[in-house]
Each structure stands twice: as structure tokens, then as C-alpha cells.
């Protein structure tokens, strides 16, 4: 399977990730399109053969961060150093507004918790849990050591667990 095949297989996940970083579907679509244009037809094997998916996420993430920088520059040319804080600006709330889910109390609380997580923790959590990347792949995609991936996941979950534990009745059966 060459990179373009991997890309097509992963396009839903890439689109979700771009939306998460950029906060709106149109920018996400543009970023995924840009990512595709960067793939060379000559790339029969991924440059990082062990992490082809992670390589795509990394390329896409860099494109998204460039777009955030451009956006930030347009808004405030003097402050371009807060890009990490902008990751996951709208997150679950933005996405679920257009995609109906069963909203149990648990889900509502997790949704609130995701919105309040630091961007890098929320990003790491969704790469692991939603997109199914291994810790090694996440480390590669986000350019941090595996230990950082583990600690970000742990902090994110601790925050969500504390939120759920605050009201035991939040864990009622959804859809009943």
C-alpha cells in the first residue's frame, strides 16, 4: 500500500483531526486537500515506513499549525507564540452540533470536559481513542516523546474522571 492509499483510507480521520485543530469544517477540508497535494506520486513507500499513518497526521498537523499562525498573524501580528493553546479551539461542541449523538449526562460532562482540556491533551486523547493511533504513532505525529504522550493522556483522563466523579448520578443509562 503506498502513501496515497493510506491517505484515502485515513481521510475521515484526517478530516476530523484537521477540524479539531482548526475549529471549522471548511478550513479542515482545505487543510486535508493541501496535505494530499503534498504527497508525491513517486512515494511508493512512506518516508517513515513504520508509521505511515502517523506521518500523514504529522504533515497535516503542520499544515494546520501554519494555518493557525496565518490566522493569528492576521488578527494580531505581534503575538504568534500561542499556537499550541489554539489547538482544539471548538472541539467536540463544534462537531457534535452538526452530528447528533445520544447525549447522556455522561456524554454531556465528557463534552464539557473535552472543551476545557488543554489543546495538546485533547489532541492526544482523540488521536489515541478516536483515531486508534498507537502511543508510538502519536509520539511521531505530534513530535514528542512517548512519555509525554502517556502523561498527556493521563492528565486528560484524570480531568474527565474528576468531572464525572463530581456527580455520581451523571453515570445514568443513556437512551433508556
Amino acid at each position, binding site marked *: 500500500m503506498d502513501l*496515497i492509499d493510506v491517505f*484515502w*483510507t*485515513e*481521510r*475521515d*480521520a*484526517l*478530516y*476530523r483531526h484537521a*477540524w*479539531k485543530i482548526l475549529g471549522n*469544517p471548511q478550513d479542515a*477540508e482545505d487543510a*486535508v*486537500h493541501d496535505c*494530499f*497535494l503534498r504527497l508525491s*506520486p513517486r512515494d511508493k513507500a512512506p518516508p517513515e515506513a513504520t508509521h505511515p*499513518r502517523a506521518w500523514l497526521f504529522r504533515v497535516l498537523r503542520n499544515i494546520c499549525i501554519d494555518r493557525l499562525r496565518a490566522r493569528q498573524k492576521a488578527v494580531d501580528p505581534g503575538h504568534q507564540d500561542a499556537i499550541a493553546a489554539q489547538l482544539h479551539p471548538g*472541539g*467536540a461542541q463544534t*462537531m*457534535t452540533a452538526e*452530528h447528533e*449523538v*445520544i447525549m447522556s449526562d*455522561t*456524554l454531556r460532562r*465528557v*463534552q464539557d470536559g*473535552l472543551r476545557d482540556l488543554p489543546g495538546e491533551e485533547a489532541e492526544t*486523547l*482523540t488521536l*489515541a*481513542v*478516536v*483515531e*486508534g*493511533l*498507537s*502511543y508510538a504513532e502519536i509520539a511521531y505525529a505530534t513530535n514528542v516523546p512517548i512519555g509525554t504522550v*502517556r*502523561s498527556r*493522556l*493521563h492528565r486528560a*483522563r484524570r480531568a*474527565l*474522571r474528576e468531572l*464525572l466523579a463530581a456527580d455520581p448520578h451523571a*453515570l445514568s*443509562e*443513556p*437512551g*433508556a
Partner: protein
Amino acid sequence: MSENERPDELALEAYADGENNAETAYVAQLLPGCEEARTYVAEIREINEAVRLLEGAVRAPDTLTERLNRARPANQPARPTLSRRVLLQSGLAAAAVAGGVLVYNASSGRGPYLQEVLFGDFRTMEAAGRRLDFASSDAMAVVGWFRERLPFELMELAGLTGLSIRGGRLCWLMNRRCASLEFASPKGSYCLYIAEAEGLKIDPRRALPEPGAAAIALSGETLSGVVWRDDALAYALIGEPSAPDLASVAAQLRIAKPGGTSG
């Protein structure tokens, strides 16, 4: 179990995330004997399921697929748009790969394996009070709930009509989407797990049966199970009834065939 033997929270989270290494193999070994650890894993899995439900529903829109098709190299075939994809059985394989199915391939020679993971899931759900994502005694409603959330078609309902269903959970086991339908019976509760079969092994020595071949019985200390495969999907009944009892349920379910497209 002593304090020193109890896995730390990061190791338990790695296990719940499906990481495949010596650390998680150690967790799998210790989990049956540590209720506290099982409870923690159940909580993590519940959070994971909630995050997936909230964040995993979005798919690339047709407008993006069309743009990508226009930009594709001349020697690459055009790919179907979302509206076509949901109608295509062949799209299911792509969704499986998107979920990371290939992480646990048969050639890796290491766990986790299906029996260990499913028995573990059943036990951890026990610790969590068997919470369901969708609770209903109406089999049609449960299957309908799953249809919008799975990258594959569930069976028709003929085989479910005589069974006492409680509801369902959307799982993420071994890096793939998995439906878990829960049933009650006089001999105890049990779950029907359904996931894409590609790359799964029952244990280090046993592959899944061939599609349509006889089911394989599983046994644990307190749980039993049967596993079979039809077409691209693996089915497992895991629970408190004996393996022969579960096998008779399996025979009833296997009369049903995968449903038509729901698009």
C-alpha cells in the same frame, strides 16, 4: 495482590488503549486478581467510549472527496464519495483499516488475543455495573442504534427475537469498532460481540474458524464463550452460561444473515 504488584494507572490506561507490549501483557496477567484495577480499566473504557461517540461521527464530506479525486495522480483510480461509501460493503474494509486493525496482526505472535480481551471486557463491565450506551428490550431499536455507528452491517433480527436483550455498547476492542449486545437469561448474562475479523486470533495457537465453519468453544474460570465467523465478521458470545448453552444461542443467531444496506 500486594501494593507492589498492582499495575500503575498509566499501565492500566495503556492496556485499555490496546497498547501491545510487555507492560500491557503484565497488566492482562494481573487484572483477573485485582478488582481495583479492573474498575479503573472499566472507567477508562467508559471515558474512551464517550469520547468516541462525541468525536468519531464526523466523516470527510463528498465535497472533499470530489476535490481529492480531481487532484489525484492520473494513474490512481477515483474513490467513492461518502454517499456512495455508506452503500458499499467494500467500504467496510477501509473503515477497519482506519481504526488501526492492522496493529494486531496474526504474524506479530503476541497478544492481546480475542479470548483474553473479550473475557477481560466482560469482567470489567461487571465491575462497572454493566452500564450500557443504549438500554432497550427492543432488539430492533438496539440494532437500529448500532447501524448508525458501525462500519459494518449487523445481522437481521430473526435470531434475536427469542432472546432477552438488555441493550448495547459500542466498544473499541483491539483497535477496532465492536458492537456488544447484552442479553439476560436464567443462567446468567452474556454478551454478543461483533467485529471485523481481519487479523484476529483467538489465542496464540488458535486462529478464528473459517467463515461458515463450526463455532469454537472457549472456557475461563467463571466465564464461557463461543466464537465463529461469517463472511468478514467475527462473532463471540461471552458470559456466565455454559459453553453448550451459548452454542445453542449461537446456532439460533447463525440462521440470520447480515442485513442489506441501510443507506
